[in-house]
Every structure is written in C-alpha cells, then in structure tokens.
C-alpha cells in the first residue's frame, strides 16, 4: 500500500518488517513493525525510484509500482546503498518494467548480481556515482545531480555519517532528504499503523530510541569521535532545511517541526555521553 507524501511528486511504497528478534539493524528486544521504504519521485511522465525495498515485499512493491507508473512502464532507479534492503527487488522490477537508468555506487554492477540481469543492454544503463576517489579513500559523488526530468533534479552526496558506501539524495522540489540507513528509528505498534510521523501524530520518540537504532547498526558510534559527524549533520540540515526525512527503513518524518525535533534527537544520539 503506497502513500503519497507530496501530490504527484513523491510517494512512499513498501511493506512492514515484524521486529521479532530476526532483524539485525534494530536494538535487541525491539518490538513492533518497521516500515521498509522505496520512494517514487515523479515529474510528468518521468519516474525515479529511490531504492527498491525488500524481496519479502516484492509483490506489493511491484503491484504498487504498476498502479503508479503503469504496467511495464519506464522507471529509473537510484540506490542509496548496495545492501540487500535496498537492491533486492532489482531483478523482479526489471522483469516487469523498463529500467531506463540505474544510478549506483561501488565497483560491483548490480545488474550483474542477479541471474537474469546480465544483459549488455541493461549493463549499459548503469551510471556509477562514486568513481572519483581521493588518495585517502574518500568516495565523492561523480554524478552530483540526477535529472529526474528537465528542471527537476535529485542532488546526490556521499554523507559523512555512513557505514558502508552510501549516498543521500536531496529533492529540493519536495524538500525531501533521503537518508538511507540513518533516521530509521520510527517504528509502529501495529502493522497497519501510521508510517508517517507528522504534526497530526502523537510523537513518542525519545533520544534513547533514536540512539538504540543508530547504535544497532553503527555500533562504533559510542566509542568514536562524533563531533565532526554532529557538525556535518547540523550544517546539512541548516543548509537544506528539509521538510521531509525519507529513510530506507522506519517511519517517514514529515513537517519542519518534526524534522527539527528528530534532528535534535540524532545530534544527542551522536553525543553518546548524553544518552
């Protein structure tokens, strides 16, 4: 079941992950349901999918995609990471839709990662976005902008706050910051709960909850020098002033007050002695 985040511009698709002890990226003992998100950016007849969701949700994502872009329609894809929670529906999407362009980092071509995707025609549609590196091993986005359609771009950046090679996206048109595997802390009590935290929802999020989710995957944070990470994050949000935080997992955070509140939680979580 998809949900519109910005009329005719941005939609979130995906299913829910039961937190039953079999998920590594949430705090131990976490319960409830965590949304798994793919986002469709739309401009006229052009479509850019940000991540592809989990294989276990393949059927609902593909059906929703068919309803949104038409059966067999054309879509470009941008992977924020090459991890399986982002890429594992690439093959079924390619089997049902026309993947026009694939934007991804890393040296491994995701088109090569699935049995039916080793076709030269598809491989030529891949655009690598992290080919330029410094001598110290930094990755910098090469394609700093992905043109969704003339006049509308998604700006791409390799964030300082990351674990594996990761890219954040910024859609100025909708004020949306795609944060991949950070800001993933919003979970639901019920599978049919509210997957968007906005001003209409009672927000019971605590800094401990944010830190728990952050440290579950970024286990090195509590023993690390976090000041540069805080400064980078604060600067990023001051510069962009996003209206929506769109993570690969967890509830979407919508509305500037909500965004600012959750930025504060994250900055405190990046000050481990406060948690």
């Amino acid at each position: 079941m998809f949900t519109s985040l910005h009329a005719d511009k941005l939609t979130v698709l995906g299913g829910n992950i039961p937190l039953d002890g079999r998920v590594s990226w949430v705090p131990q003992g976490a319960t409830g349901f965590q949304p798994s998100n793919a986002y469709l950016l739309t401009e006229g007849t052009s479509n850019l999918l940000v991540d592809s969701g989990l294989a276990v949700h393949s059927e609902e994502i593909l059906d929703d995609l068919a309803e949104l872009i038409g059966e067999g329609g054309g879509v470009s894809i941008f992977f924020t990471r090459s991890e399986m929670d982002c890429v594992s529906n690439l093959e079924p999407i390619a089997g049902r839709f026309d993947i026009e362009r694939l934007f991804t980092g890393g040296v491994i071509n995701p088109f090569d990662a699935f049995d039916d995707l080793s076709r030269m025609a598809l491989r030529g549609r891949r655009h690598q976005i992290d080919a330029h590196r410094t001598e110290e091993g930094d990755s910098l986005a090469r394609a700093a902008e992905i043109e969704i359609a003339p006049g509308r771009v998604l700006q791409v950046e390799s964030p300082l706050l990351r674990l594996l090679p990761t890219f954040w996206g910024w859609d100025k048109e909708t004020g949306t910051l795609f944060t991949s595997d950070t800001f993933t802390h919003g979970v639901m009590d019920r599978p049919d709960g509210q997957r968007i935290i906005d001003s209409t929802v009672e927000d019971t999020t605590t800094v401990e909850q944010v830190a728990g989710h952050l440290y579950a995957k970024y286990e090195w944070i509590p023993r690390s020098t976090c000041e540069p990470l805080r400064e980078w994050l604060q600067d990023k949000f001051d510069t962009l002033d996003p209206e929506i935080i769109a993570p690969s997992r967890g509830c979407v955070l919508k509305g500037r007050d909500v965004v600012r509140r959750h930025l504060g939680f994250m900055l405190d979580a990046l000050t481990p002695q406060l948690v």
Partner: protein
Amino acid sequence: MEEQLVETMSSDLPRSVAKGVTWMSSCLPFHLADRVIHGHNSTYLVQGEHSSILVDTGNPSSWPIISSTLDELLDGRELTYVFPTHPELPHTGNLPRLVEKYPNIQVVGDTRDYHLFYPQIVPNLHAKVPGDKVDLGGQEFVVVEALIRDLPNTQWGFAPGAGVLFTADGFCYMHRPELDDEDPVHLPGECGLTTGELQVPIAVENAAFFTGSALYWARFANDADAVYDRVLHLIDELGVTSVAPTHGNFISNIRDVEPIIRAGHKRAYRYETAQP
C-alpha cells in the same frame, strides 16, 4: 542472446592452503588505462570425511565458475553447509543458487535479516552463535565472534584441524602502492599467492587506504590497539596459523602481517587532536 557474465577465476586457483581447506577466488578485473588489476572475492571450501562447508558464496556473476569448481572438488557429493559471513552481495549473493543446486544445504551463521532478503531459502536457514560447532567428519568448523566487522551480523569461522581463521572483511588489504579503488587488488599472476609468497609485501599505506575505505568507522574510532590486541588474543587462544580474508591474498604469515594491518588501521583515524 544474453551474454554469460563470468568474473575472472585465476588458473592458479582453486588451491589447497591447509588440511581440508581449498581457496577458491573469483577475481574481479578492473581495466585501467594502462593495465588490468584484479580484486579478490574469495570463497573457501572446508572438507571433512562426510561433510563440507563453503565460507562465503562469491559474487553472483561468478556463479557459473564457482558451481563448476564445486563439482570438481566435491566429486559427486552434495555441499552440506554454507557459512555466509555477512549479507553483502560478494559474500551471500549466490545463496539462492546454492539452495537450488543443493536443496538440502544448511545455511549456518548469524542468519538475521536473510528471511527478508531471500524469503525462498527460509527452510534452509539454521542460526548459529559464536562457539557453535559444525562436525564435518575429522574436521570441525567453529563459529567465532567477528572482532573486525562492518555489518552487525558479521561472523568469523575457524577450522581447528587446519588452523585457519576466516575473517570476512577483517584483514583485507591491498599491496600495490598506486591504487585507485577501494577493493583490495593485485596484479594478474598474483591471484593464487599467499602473503608469504608475494614479492611485494603489504605496506602500511595500503592497509590504511583499505581500512579507511571499507571499514569506514576506523576513521572515527581510535581504538586499533584494543581491536588488534583482542584479535591476537583470539589467535593465541584458538591456535590460528593462517588467516583467510574474503578480499586479499591468503595470509600464511599472520604474525608478520598483523602489525602492518594494525598500523594501517591506526593511520586511518582522522582526528589526531580530538578526544577519542
């Protein structure tokens, strides 16, 4: 007609590197302007009298050659176990193909998340925790806590009868000074060499480059000595003689290599004047 994509598999491999342990490596070729370099993406087969276990699965694009190599090494027997160290594509990408080829195979290790990525293999998943042992017949495979990792559900393994510690992305390194990519690479002809056989030894700069890139957290966490002291303690406790990383040459002289990797890890830290 679709192109059959196969990553390079060195003619020097597979190679027996310890009792019952075979090093299988597909090497991803990188075509630079003036040369070709290779990146190891290794899998290891540990064989006992009645069972065998594959450590990591290799890239999906190298499946045809991995499959045929398994046919050759297993000589008609089924692969009993596969131990994916962690769920990144180079380590787990062939899980569905392995289950299709060997329907009774047991996928052992920290199997959290796999039901979400590969729902079709759920019946084959058998969760293990550090200390758990798999009996292969005259050869054991022990699950070990990963002391250097990126993803939270990374595990290491140890084959006591062979003295080999399987360290996933830990102890990965490059040994060429003029590199321009984060994957550990080498020149053609070096694919099947152990670190004791390499003519150009690993440099601290190489280890630092790789650590700062692939183990990104090392640039923020200033605790290399604590990490590698624990690793050395583990090596002593288990009686490790060789280390088998997924990326990089098989390490036959761990006592010589460990100080270089440790120094590289320290150098990857970026904030010398800041509070650790």
